[in-house]
């Protein structure tokens, strides 16, 4: 019957058109796949890095907590040490274009240059799609993904919740610890912490 067929078609259309809300990714589960574009307009896809350890760093240069780890050189040295060892480091900026913190790709790239920071790629996520997929809340929110594509760490960069660079030397860097354990083939002991920092400007 024509009408019944139409109803079934309509129902099917609605069913396929709706996408379920993404759940918070939890360490131990596969990291959500994503595709993005870096500051140079080059596509970046998580799937391309299968077989390598990947670090995701949520970044916003205007955030005092991000500045804490860059003015001190803490983030840069972590990036250098690990990219040299074959780790892929993706700095992701999810600030929406309408926010005053937004930086155009060239400007953002220049800021990383000034900081002498060299992540594998600086990913533009102005629509917040990658941020929402990872339920990223703050800058810097840090994630570590192992070679098998499993999320092994999600949370804060370290255990001293402050914007004061002086606190870095007395703090434990959760990301460094997790990367060390991954490199040694050990399970990550502290796989989740509460991230601290500025709200991501979605």
């Amino acid at each position, binding site marked *: 019957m024509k*009408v019944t067929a139409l*109803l079934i078609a309509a129902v099917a259309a*609605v069913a396929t058109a709706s996408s379920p*809300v993404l*759940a918070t990714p939890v360490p131990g589960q596969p990291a959500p796949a994503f595709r993005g574009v870096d500051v140079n307009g080059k596509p970046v896809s998580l799937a391309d890095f299968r077989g390598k350890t990947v670090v995701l760093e949520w970044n916003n240069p205007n*955030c005092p907590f991000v500045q804490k780890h860059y003015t001190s050189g803490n983030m840069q040295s972590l990036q250098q040490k690990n990219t040299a060892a074959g780790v892929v480091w993706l700095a992701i900026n999810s600030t929406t274009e309408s926010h*005053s913190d937004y930086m155009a790709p060239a400007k953002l790239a220049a800021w990383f240059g000034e900081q002498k920071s060299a992540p594998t790629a600086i990913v533009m996520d102005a629509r917040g799609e990658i941020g929402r997929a990872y339920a990223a809340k703050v800058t810097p929110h840090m994630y570590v993904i192992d070679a098998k594509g499993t999320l092994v760490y999600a949370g804060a960069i370290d255990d001293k*919740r402050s*914007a004061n660079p002086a606190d870095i030397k007395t703090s434990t860097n959760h990301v460094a610890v997790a990367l060390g354990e991954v490199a040694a083939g050990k399970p990550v002991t502290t796989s989740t912490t509460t991230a601290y920092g500025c709200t991501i400007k979605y």
Partner: protein
Amino acid sequence: MRTLLTVLFALLTLLPGQTAWAQSLPRFGAPERHVDAELLAATDAIVPGQPLTVGLKLKHQSEWHTYWQVPGDSGLPTRIDWRLPAGFTAGPIEWPHPKRLPTGPLVNFGYDGEILLLTTIQVPADVPVGSRVTLAGKAEWLECKDVCIPGESDIALTLPVKAAAGPSAHVALFEATRVLIPQPLANATGQGTIDGSRIRLSLALPAGKTASRLEFFPQHEGRIEPAAPQVLKREGDAVELYLTAAQPVKADAKTLQGVLVANGGPAAGGWIGSIDLPLVAGTVAPVSAVPSTNPAAAMSLVAALGAALLGGLLLNLMPCVFPVLSLKLIGLAQHRTHSGSLAAHGIAFAAGVVLSFVLLAGLLIALQQAGSALGWGFQLQTPWVVASLTVLFFLIGLNLLGVYEFTLGSGIGNAKAAESLTRTRDWRGSFATGVLAVIVASPCTAPFMGAALGYAITQPATVALSVFAALGVGMAAPYLLLTLFPALLHKLPRPGRWMELFKQFMAFPMFATCVWLLWVLAQQVDAGGVGLALAVVVAVGFAAWALGLSQRGAYPFRWVALAGALVAALAFAPLATSDPAAVAKAASSDDWVAYSPEKLAQLTSEGTPVFIDFTAAWCVTCQVNKRVALTSDKVISGFAAAGVVRMRADWTTRDERITQALAQFGRNGVPLYVLYDTKGQPTVLPEILTEATVLAALDKIKLAAR
């Protein structure tokens, strides 16, 4: 004819609009500081051996805030590093209860306006009377608006040491602050139950305490998802607050500690208390995201079923349904003698209606449980469904005009069809008419239906499905009654030539509905999409014409009809893949502000009254209300006089944030009209608006503001 009115209204809104609303935040050169800090004492002197209460007063500039001891999704708690003379020791900060501060999809816990963070200082017994003591320290905080800046200030206070102390000049502020500091909730028993991501906080409230709104602020980070809605269910003194556990759940999470803020806290006439309850694993049924601030009155099942039945009845009068059903009734009038098989038709029709409603509702519930933010009318939020309906209504119109013959729906004016109506075999036609009636009726959320649907969606699936079934029974009732009691048919007018004319006339409401549907489509896709839909309509019209010719004996036209249908199908394909989200929503055609929860929170926190029009292009009632009650000069000037900001939440295409906002009011469909007063208290206005209703509501706001 309401349909024609609707189309007229629809066409009016197509007139070129004024500038779209756009607001950018004022940019000013960042001032040095947005928070002023000052150290105060409750007494005018220090007494040896007696504890002294001091307070850090933080005064926030408008829109700026600082954080509670647990800051929520981001932020830092304020802290004080004391530099005290030997023998003096400072206790921890005694925090007043915080409030929820939403920013985008995230929620922080903190303070705005002016607050006092108390600290108890232990004074040594040997401090000499007559001396002066300076208490100093450094206060550090994070001050945020949409950007965050770390703030710090050196604080100091010098007091004389006396044998006895009197109140200081700030004693009133200290007194006012003490009532905001949560104490353990006495005589309250309860426990937390955790089931995956769901947490249920069950509590028996102490005598004399009630909670119509309840918020929980967790003492531990990473245990409760700060931004998740908190759903309150209550029965007498027993309350249940449904929370969302942060993932992953920590193995050592064995307690639920934190602060409960009821009815807005002491400052708003409510109460506060801290709790420390065991958290045990168990079963927690999912609840829908109706926050505890839900002002929608709880509805009993009987009332909901009754409302659904009545709503279903009224659906028969909706402009899009009426022609189909009236023709079906006339068809009955022609066959008033065949009573036996009539009952079968009536039952088949009713079954078609009820099953379709249950099927649609089941799908809606299933999708909601899968996490999609959908609401009633979701069918019409997909462009190609709207386009399909346009084609369907056009085909029905052509059929009514006699371009081609098809027994579906009317079954009159055609000897063969009329004959087959009495054949039991054709009960399938009646079933299909029932299904068709539900498809065309779904956008017309009749009065009473909104509340019943809102109720249904917050209930367990079985209750929800029975409410929807009641809706179907209501809709099928008139037809069913006539077929079961054919004697009633004699009350209908006698058949004759007028029926053929009436049938042809009914084609025009159908075409008018097509115009309306195309207008809806125009809100969802671009001009190219609408053009494509119209091309499909032409091809379908051609196919129907050729089909009619072949039915009249010109058989070769069958192939022409087939070709026309093929062209229609090909033209339709790109429509099916069009993405509604890719097309910007139509700019508001007047000075209405586009809805956003952040903007709403900002306005209500500033004490600005706000009116929200939850609407959709495909909602007939909404369009009528808009023309009748919301756009008259009188109402517009009434809004202006009351200083009300008018917000429009346009649900024409799927919008999760609007679906969530509707859920806050226990609703699942549009229209919904909400007026927030200067204290941020919402009032829900009726679904059928008149000028008088709106003006009366505005008067109340003005009175309340005084």
